[in-house]
């Protein structure tokens, strides 16, 4: 069975440890599970497992490309769960996908099979505060924490409601835009983190566009954790494999622990 996302993250945050969450698109590469193990070995506190969707409206080119590869490899939610269930991974696993994938299999079945594979968190970005309720209840009954997003555009009162509902951590969207690597962090990071700090919330993890150890360091000065997706996926697309992923995540770990 999986490791509770909320318990693990609360404990680590209490110890003042910064959280590191790499993202990997499941099935994008034959060795994706080895890459998951490599990033855990390199110091990941949780791993975000992406499930491909044909129409990912919150993803930029890099993750779109990985998703298309994964779909071409015949990846399905249940093939991913079956493969994950064969490994025993020592950190919380957070599934990230779009709602149609969840809705299509049905909340119960999706949550049940995800939980059996060791998944203890979910990020479904197109389930907004107004729409997330049904899924959140079913997920919770299977020990899955549903993580909600706060964006730079989210007003104060809404931020409070989202943070009260978000479980495991709250996903602070680092810029008004889709996933993708960037040369410099957006000025939005400071604003969104301090907006969340002003209300009660689970640990704050910043993602979307965080690309380098330097940027991860900067973000970790303000937030509780960092999510790194496209920059890691780009390395896997470029054929750097488990070794390259390990080296990159080690450098992120070192930066945020500095």
């Amino acid at each position, binding site marked *: 069975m999986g490791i509770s996302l909320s318990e693990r993250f609360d404990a680590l945050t209490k110890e003042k440890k910064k959280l590191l969450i790499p993202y990997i698109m499941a099935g994008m590469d034959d060795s994706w599970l080895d890459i998951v193990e490599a990033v855990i070995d390199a110091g990941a506190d949780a791993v975000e497992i992406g499930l491909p*969707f*044909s*129409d*990912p*409206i*919150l993803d*930029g*080119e890099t993750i*779109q490309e990985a998703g*298309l590869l994964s*779909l071409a490899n015949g990846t*399905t*939610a249940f093939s991913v769960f079956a493969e994950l269930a064969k490994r025993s991974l020592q950190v919380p696993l957070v599934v990230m996908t*779009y*709602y*149609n*994938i969840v*809705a*299509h*299999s049905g909340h119960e079945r999706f949550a049940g099979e995800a939980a059996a594979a060791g998944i203890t968190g979910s990020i479904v*970005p*197109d*389930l*907004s*505060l*107004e*729409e997330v309720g049904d899924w959140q209840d079913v997920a919770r009954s299977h020990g899955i924490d549903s993580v*909600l*997003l*706060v*964006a*730079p*555009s*989210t*007003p104060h009162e*809404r931020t409070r409601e*989202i943070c009260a509902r978000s479980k495991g951590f709250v996903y602070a*969207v680092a810029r*008004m*835009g*889709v996933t993708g690597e960037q040369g410099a962090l957006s000025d939005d990071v400071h604003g969104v983190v301090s907006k969340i700090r002003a209300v009660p919330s689970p640990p704050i993890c910043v993602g979307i566009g965080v690309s380098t150890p330097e940027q991860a360091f900067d973000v970790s000065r303000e937030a509780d954790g960092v999510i790194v997706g496209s920059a890691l996926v780009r390395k896997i697309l470029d054929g750097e494999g488990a070794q390259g992923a390990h080296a990159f995540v080690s450098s992120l770990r070192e930066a945020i622990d500095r």
Partner: protein
Amino acid sequence: MWTMDPLIGVEVEMVDNAEMMMGTPDDDGRFGSFGGRFVPEPLIPACLELEAAFKDAWGDPVFVEEYESILHDFGGRPTPITFCRRLSEDLGISLYLKREDLAHTGSHKINNVIGQALLTRRMGKHKMIAETGAGQHGVASATAAALLGLECTVYMGELDTQRQELNVFRMELLGATVVPVTSGSKTLKDAVNEAMRTWVTQVDDTHYCLGSVMGPHPFPWMVREFQRVIGDEAALQSKELGIGTPDYVVACIGGGSNAAGMFAGFADSTAQLIGVEASGGAAITSGSPGVLHGMRSQLIQDDQGQISEAHSISAGLDYPGIGPEHAHLADIGRARYEQAGDDEVLEALQLLASREGIIPALEPAHGLAWILREAGRGIPKGSSVLLNMSGRGDKDVAQVLSILKGRP
């Protein structure tokens, strides 16, 4: 209770919203179990802003008057109803066309874009982005932007930019920028994805002018309201012309905006409402419930919930989903949805051209194909049938030429 309808300037009966067939959706944007607002958090505030702005504008007589007067002076409204004398004789029914093909830019799309362009300005924004498949909505958006002095960028699947080169040039002549979309299947659904991805980055000064009754709340409702002028006019004209309430009201369905606008005028009447989908993109008759582009509706998808591409002779109907209100109307049995295939559509187009002197767009030719197939069968002889002629065929003539000439 009776009140003045701002769009048609006559007394109409006000029906209590709860009892009304095509009333406002609930607070979460639901039509029955369909609709909603399934977009990532960064876009939610923009949707809320739009909802508030639309409600405010649509209740403001000054806004409505400007919208109406532009549709009149610039858009060519009201469009007439034409009786098809020869085809009616052939078929043993009375066939009428609501002539949206005579509206400016050649289709009903102008009604929606004038509304949304005015709203863009009212929200203090100066840019519009839009998606387009065949290019009709793109051309209409570029037109409205030119009229009101807005910047306009149109996202169009790369495959579609090649298939519809002339429409790309039209948009450019109108001052818009056309961005070919190379992601995913490089067609309409990917153009919507890309427009949404771009909208996130510029919500402060940009409105997303969606082209049909789809997307997150308030779009399906707002676009239907901007298109209801078709049905409101047609209902009034039917009375004036002595048709009364037509037995059948027929419209083709891509996302469903021309049909929604038409149906809105007849939802509370006895008319049978028929939506005709392309058989290669039939979301209601061949799809299943799902969530795409911000809405819960009927979608064409595989057994894992991956969205399929739609394929038909008409690019304007190649959308794997359908507006949520149609999914609801089908659910409650108020409207019926049928299919038409490529071959019968081509026949229908040629027949209307040669028998009535009207070259229809391929999209409404789907509606006609269904009527031709059913007249005297599913449609009893003597019935009155009103078809929404949503657009003219000029844009399709080159394609039809190559298909007909290429045939053995």
